């Protein structure tokens, strides 16, 4: 009886764990039962490469990485980045070198999170976090200025009031940059050639995949640099 088969299918779903949705309270915690609220509140793990909102990184010594070169603004297909550089005060430099990003704004109402800016940035100054859960109540909030984008003194992104942010979600802010770093050249797979970030140090490059693809033979160089992925 074809009519009845479907009933079993729907019935069977009851106990299954393959739920589409998860319990989510938008980060609200119930005051009285804090612990319970937290366990109820599951967020699905986000992959490392996720394109979320941007951050402006600092070097490990606290200097800003952005040099105001406007490459990100130039490559942005949505034209949502506005950068103006300025000369550093030699006595109190904001960034190493001559110039620094004086104005840096991203309009998130336009940003399409293609991460071309991250690929374009020559100093790895702008990278993307895994955070995308933010909702604004006005247009002004959607325009992030350098103030909001720049990482804090601990190297972690600023947690703005309208962002739902959980511990640990600030990690891997540079995953996409690291993934695209070799630009296809197998010789550069796994090669770390970027400066350390404040709070995280020098992050490992993404492990090359040729070794992971066991069916194929990667060349010797690949095997030698195969390092465990850096979960700092």
């Amino acid at each position, binding site marked *: 009886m074809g009519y009845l088969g479907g009933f079993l299918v729907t019935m069977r779903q009851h106990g299954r764990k393959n739920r589409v949705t998860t319990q989510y309270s938008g980060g609200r915690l119930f005051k009285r039962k804090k612990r319970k609220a937290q366990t109820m509140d599951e967020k699905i793990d986000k992959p490392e490469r996720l394109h979320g909102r941007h951050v402006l990184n600092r070097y490990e010594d606290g200097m800003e990485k952005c040099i105001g070169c406007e490459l990100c603004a130039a490559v942005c*297909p949505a034209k949502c980045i506005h950068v103006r550089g300025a000369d550093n005060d030699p006595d109190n430099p904001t960034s190493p070198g001559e110039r620094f990003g004086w104005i840096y704004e991203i309009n998130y109402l336009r940003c399409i999170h293609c991460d071309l800016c991250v690929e374009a940035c020559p100093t790895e100054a702008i990278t993307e976090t895994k955070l995308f859960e933010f909702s604004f109540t006005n247009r002004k909030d959607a325009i992030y200025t350098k103030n909001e984008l720049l990482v804090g003194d601990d190297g972690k992104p600023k947690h703005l009031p309208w962002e739902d942010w959980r511990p640990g979600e600030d990690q891997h802010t540079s995953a996409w940059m690291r993934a695209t770093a070799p*630009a*296809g050249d197998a010789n550069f797979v796994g090669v770390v050639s970027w400066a350390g970030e404040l709070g995280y140090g020098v992050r490992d490059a993404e492990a090359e995949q040729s070794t992971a693809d066991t069916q194929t033979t990667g060349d010797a160089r690949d095997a030698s640099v195969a390092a465990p992925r850096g979960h700092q």
Partner: protein
Amino acid sequence: MTTIVSAGAATSEGGQELRPRGEISQKALMREAGAVLRLSESAAAALSDVVSDVDEDQSMIINMGPQHPSTHGVLRLMLELQGETVLRCKPVIGYLHTGMEKTGESLTYLQGGTNVTRMDYLSPLNNELVFSMATEKLLGIDGEIPERAQWMRMLLSELNRMSSHLLFLATNGMDLGAVSMMLYGWREREEVLRFFQKVTGLRMNHNFIRPGGLAADLPAGWRDDVLHLLEMLPDRLAEYEILMTGQPIWRERLQGVGVITQSEAIALAATGPILRSTGLAWDLRRDLPYLKYREVEFDVVVGAHGDAYDRYAIRLQEIRESMRIVRQILDKMPSGDYRIQNKKVTPPPRGRIDESMEALIHHFKIFTEGFKVPEGEVYVAIESPRGEIGCYIASDGSSVPYRMHVRAPSFVNVQCLPHMMRGGLVADAVAVISSIDPVLGEVDR
């Protein structure tokens, strides 16, 4: 300039709309009723299903859409109904027109992917693929794309086909009132999208396939994720078979609905599952192969009746075929570059920027003005889940396309609607729209 009053009194589409019977000549009515094939008037009159002897006050013109739950976006169908029988139908489109072809003329080839990927938002990777392939052909590097890049593209393309078809199953189920199917379809699609998210960082609109290769390599552990998909899906598909295919109500609702014959489908340039449902085995992957489709084995699924049920069954089976292809890809995936090492197209590795000033300048040039593409024009087509998606690029030698046109399968397939719907019921209309599986982002571009 029309006054506000008149604009408010009627909808603004004017001549694009279906005109009432009283306003058109009998001849035009014949022609319109013969809708799709646009037969000669006598031939249309000879067709028994062309209803022309209906009084106007016995029929009613009803708008299905642009805001309607089952028009898959902002498709607007104007239906002339007699009771619940559809006498005439005319799709009115353009409500999602965002001028993407025009936008494409101001974005460099590097940025272009972000634009085209938004057209058919259910199979973005196929859009990117066809755009990249057209660009590569213009650049003359289409023969030099690294093996791994090609296999990766195939992998993503096939997975995308799966996700798109899964979504079709979901929406098809929902349109016919099988609400659970909707969520099951979305659920499985979500698994595929999670894989995409791992690879590209985004669930949709990836901008991952770029001219010259791909943006990044597959992440570690990708093989396990794909295997997980391949393990999970067959059981789920079997469930769909029980829930839908095995359900007599389901079959009754779809079989014999929205029939289109092979010659009609060809005349209307319908491609993809619609063409295949009429029994013609036409699949660009097999018939005009691109990438490495020559090296994998798969079957082209065809139907026999050209009805909505065949289109449903074809898509369901195509998921299985895609899985078969993916399995072969897993075996054959080579190592190597994922992007062409042509200095002109690919930015230098990050490691090299610090080493060489030339690389830095090169990096700057590519990201600011993009790479220049030689003058010429080219049309490249691949098989998207919805049919033949083609990309026509005319270049004037600069780094932005002079003209970028996408031959959107949905845009062409939507033309089949009036023909498939004629004589059906309103409920059939829903099934027919669903079986076309149009993506309005692509229809309107």
